């Protein structure tokens, strides 16, 4: 049985929603209703099912009603019509007390702009959901710490949210949602406010966590790449209505209509994916700070034969090779500046994958991806380009190493 079953879920913004509901049943379009009555259809008779333990991605452009839809699922916005069945109970018909119980035990939410409480420490933020359930202090702390450890934020308990970076703040948001141990996670554009690389780390981390936890996740995004990367199934929305539900494969190979087709035709991978989609986090050393010994150690740790050299502000200087560095170490040379080779192949963030393919097939060292200020954002290695071109997933887990 499906974990979540949504039937004809509808939201009308306006003065006489019942009238608009009737007009929708008579198959009038969103525009007709807006012109005739001035009422806006937020979500139009959406029906779908979410299976237990899957990541269900709802994807659409802004204004397609996806954020409204996810708020209808936990009734942060009251539905105008339709049903939301959770484990066989209809959320749309619940009274306040039952609804609170579901929100406390069964589903929690992660927000685009994190929604953390600035006057509470990280630990207190994560404890919030348990605190309002009236759990005792020791119990609360234990569960919150467990949840923080899960997202890799051990040691930050006593900090305040504004002391953390965006990516870390969203980890706190995730930890707070997980602390209640809910069955269902609602994630509203949870990674959209993050930088591209951090975003990818978070996507990977979510997939890793999902391996362990097997939650039912409803994930909202406007980004097709993100949807394809993390979704077990994807639902595409347009103007408040469901256009297509299917696996990423289905969506790419059998688009339901022109709208979806236009979406996915852009996913000609070699054209759409650019350097920033396939780059990985580089190992670097700092020209101002690190010497040959550090360089050698890092290369050994990462099992690589060359390492990029940057300044403190991440500006790319060049590359050093392992053989030369180890020679310098033997000669007890302290300065690394003389070893740096300045000729490094570089590309910009939006270089298409096709061009990368040619470059990477001739280059003997990784290609550096730099932004307009020549700051090193990532590196390209050949196997990643091949993987992306062949259609297997972009930026896989080895990135962590």
């Amino acid at each position, binding site marked *: 049985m499906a974990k979540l079953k949504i039937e004809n879920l509808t939201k009308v913004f306006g003065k006489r929603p019942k009238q608009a509901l009737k007009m929708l049943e008579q198959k009038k379009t969103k525009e007709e209703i807006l012109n005739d009555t001035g009422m806006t259809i937020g979500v139009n008779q959406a029906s779908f099912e979410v299976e237990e333990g899957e990541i269900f991605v709802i994807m659409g452009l802004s204004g397609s009603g996806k954020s409204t839809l996810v708020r209808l699922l936990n009734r942060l916005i009251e539905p105008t019509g339709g049903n939301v069945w959770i484990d066989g109970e209809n959320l749309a018909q619940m009274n306040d007390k039952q609804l609170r119980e579901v929100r406390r035990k069964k589903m929690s939410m992660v927000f*685009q702009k994190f929604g953390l*409480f600035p006057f509470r420490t990280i630990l207190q933020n994560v404890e919030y959901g348990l605190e309002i359930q009236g759990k005792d202090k020791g119990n609360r702390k234990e569960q919150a710490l467990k949840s923080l450890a899960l997202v890799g934020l051990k040691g930050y308990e006593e900090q305040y949210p504004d002391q953390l970076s965006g990516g870390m703040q969203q980890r706190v948001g995730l930890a707070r949602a997980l602390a209640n141990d809910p069955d269902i996670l609602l994630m509203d554009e949870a990674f959209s406010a993050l930088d591209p690389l951090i975003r990818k780390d978070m996507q990977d981390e979510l997939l890793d966590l999902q391996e362990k936890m097997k939650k039912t996740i409803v994930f909202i995004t406007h980004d097709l790449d993100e949807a394809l990367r993390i979704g077990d199934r994807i639902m595409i929305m347009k103007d408040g209505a469901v256009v297509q539900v299917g696996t990423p494969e289905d969506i790419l190979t059998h688009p339901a209509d022109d709208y979806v087709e236009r979406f996915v035709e852009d996913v000609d991978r070699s054209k759409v994916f650019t350097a920033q989609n396939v780059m990985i986090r580089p190992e670097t050393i700092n020209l101002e700070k690190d010497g040959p010994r550090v360089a050698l150690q890092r290369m050994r740790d990462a099992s690589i034969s060359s390492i990029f050299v940057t300044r403190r502000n991440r500006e790319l200087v060049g590359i050093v090779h392992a053989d030369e560095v180890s020679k310098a170490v033997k000669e007890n040379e302290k300065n690394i500046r003389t070893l740096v080779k300045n000729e490094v192949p570089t590309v910009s963030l939006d270089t298409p994958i096709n061009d990368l393919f040619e470059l990477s097939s001739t280059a003997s060292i990784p290609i550096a991806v730099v932004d307009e200020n020549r700051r090193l954002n990532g590196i390209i290695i050949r196997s990643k380009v091949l993987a992306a071109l062949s259609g297997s997933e972009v930026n896989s887990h080895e990135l962590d190493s």
Partner: protein
Amino acid sequence: MNWIADLWRSFIGWLAESTEPVYNWFDGLLAFLPRIPFGDWIESLVDWMKNTEFIANRFNDLRDFIAFISTDIFLSFFQLIPPIIFILILTAVSFWFTRKKRAYGLPVLVFFGLLLIESVNYWNDMLLTLSLVLTATLISIVVGIPLGIWMGKSNRVQQIVTPILDFMQTMPAFVYLLPAVAFFSIGMVPGVVASVIFAMPPTVRLTNLGIRQVPTEMIEASDSFGSTSLQKLFKVQLPMAKTTIMAGVNQTIMLALSMVVIAAMIGTDGLGRQIYFAVSRNDLAMGFEAGICLVILAIILDRLTQAFNLNKMK
């Protein structure tokens, strides 16, 4: 310059004379308008309330209650403390609030300012004024913050309360003195009542604003974890609104201070009365002494509440 003014006056005179028939004709259109004696109506309403035993008794209870707080709690307590101890305590408190910023202006100001008040023999008047201001502020907070919260949560309440607050603030404060005397006779209590009416609006308004300014996502976060509305209020909305509310309380204190001279007209004792006497006797020295004492008290109260507010924000 004079010839320009003369020329202008003769021009206006000529204009008035020549347009008089037109003016009279238009004036005749309103000849039927009777005088609407709404002043009398308000007066009879006040008289009726005074003469209705039940209402009059409630006002008496209120008077006793306010007198208890202002005179018996604040004033009697302050008078127990010898001035030098009082000065040292306040200096220490202000030092504590500002310790993290290492700015020692406030403790210095408190110490020497209060010493000056003692040296010109206005210590007891200052205590009377302080009691009046603290009582008015306390009542404003106890009534104003819950009202502000209610406004913040309901648009309907906001629509009703906002014009009342506007009325309370724009009506000249002198006018409140009349009904205040009618219901509470003279002395400290009507002074407190007039001050509360005049000084409460900022606390209400800024509480309302503070509650409404809490970002939607935080409200949603709180709701999505299943908070009751009281949990949401005390764990999210009030902590988020705290600095704004404190700014309102600070404004209330300042407005209450600005009422002390006016309240002196109905027999409220304190620095305000000294200033009022000085004006009626044309005594410049006395006026400035009492006036500067009031300024010192105002600055100390303002800086102390602000420092308290900043201190609370970690």
